[in-house]
């Protein structure tokens, strides 16, 4: 069968796609296949099928945190200011402002958070940290604010359906430096909840990249690591 025609044979296409995704082609064959692939939608579909078939193998590999330098180099290469986003170390006032602007790019949440800030009475103490935790449907759901002097945590359950009767919602801080997840306690059911923070808890919030809320079973000892599914999550932004 002549070369170009041979590649139209579905069985040949299937076999080539399989070998390409598995990664067993020689250098020359791989390059030739990539040229064919760019112009053949049938071949592209075959490749996508095999990528999907073998994805569970990739999922079985352990996750490894890449060095921070990769993110910095990436941000620089794309012309993104590292200060625009949540990965940077050290957050000055200007950095916080930029972070805040980064957050406001997320329209629905930002509109809500901004509105939330505007309706606070002028005499209210401004929070030092703010996190707007979104649920799966991307609607603003829980607003967490932390104040200093005295250290205090306020949670407003704006749109947060109660969990199942045999489970409760747990709040966790995800460390910006290590990714470690540490408990900030169990959420109550009141629409607005306020409690004092210990010095250790304050430091957890101060060093947090984001806050997450998981749903955990009520039975047994409260977990020291999240076990249940993540219900809400949001970046932790320093305001002052």
């Amino acid at each position: 069968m002549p070369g170009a025609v041979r590649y139209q044979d579905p069985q040949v296409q299937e076999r080539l796609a399989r070998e390409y995704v598995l990664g067993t082609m020689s250098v020359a064959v791989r390059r030739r296949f990539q040229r064919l692939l760019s112009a053949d939608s049938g071949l592209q579909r075959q490749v996508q099928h095999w990528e999907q078939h073998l994805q569970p193998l990739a999922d079985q590999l352990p996750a490894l945190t890449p060095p921070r330098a990769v993110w910095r180099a990436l941000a620089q290469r794309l012309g993104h200011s590292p200060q625009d986003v949540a990965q940077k170390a050290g957050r000055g006032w200007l950095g916080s402002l930029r972070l805040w602007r980064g957050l406001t790019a997320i329209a629905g949440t930002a509109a809500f958070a901004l509105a939330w800030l505007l309706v606070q009475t002028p005499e209210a103490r401004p929070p030092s940290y703010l996190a707007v935790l979104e649920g799966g449907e991307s609607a603003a759901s829980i607003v967490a604010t932390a104040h200093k002097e005295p250290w205090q945590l306020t949670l407003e359950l704006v749109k947060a359906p109660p969990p199942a009767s045999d489970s409760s919602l747990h709040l966790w801080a995800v460390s910006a430096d290590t990714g470690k997840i540490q408990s900030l306690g169990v959420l109550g059911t009141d629409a607005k909840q306020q409690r004092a923070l210990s010095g250790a808890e304050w430091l957890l919030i101060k060093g947090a990249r984001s806050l997450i809320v998981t749903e955990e079973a009520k039975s047994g000892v409260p977990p020291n690591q999240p076990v249940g599914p993540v219900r809400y999550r949001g970046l932790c932004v320093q305001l002052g």
Partner: protein
Amino acid sequence: MNEQLRDLLSRCALGDRGAFAHLYELISPKLYGVALRLLKQRPHADDVLQEAFTRIWYRAGSYQSDLGNPMTWMTAIVRNHALDVLAAQGRHERLLDRDADYGDIEIAEADNDPEADTLLCDAAGRLGICLEQLRDQHRQCIAMIYWDGITYQQLADKLKKPTGTVKVWVRRGLEKLRQCLEQ
């Protein structure tokens, strides 16, 4: 999780840098695990991860959700670039005993990240069941080639079997996998 990744990709396509940072935070540990396993050396894996995320940023608009889940799309970007790098390095001349030189790398906290676990759950189900149903030697061969980017010849040397035999095992394993998925 897939819904969240689709949402982040569509925001990236609109130039939302915050969404890109969030996406990176969420999936870079999984993708770095894939790259490092293939390339064995951190500097190469770092470069591949950076290049892959650059492609993700610029190609986010071309991701079509009806053509597969977002994690598969992004894993393919990483794998394809890593395999191209391996090809450029002349991997056929590489020695297999380099396999373990990433063994001292600490497993990320992301392993305990419930969101990362959700990624796994999303990808399990039927595909995972079909992989489990393969004979051990077939699954092992497929996994070793897929994870480590080795050739049939290298696999045959490692298992001390003829190259033709391991090729047959891989082919039969993949055919059974496809049949199982089409049931």
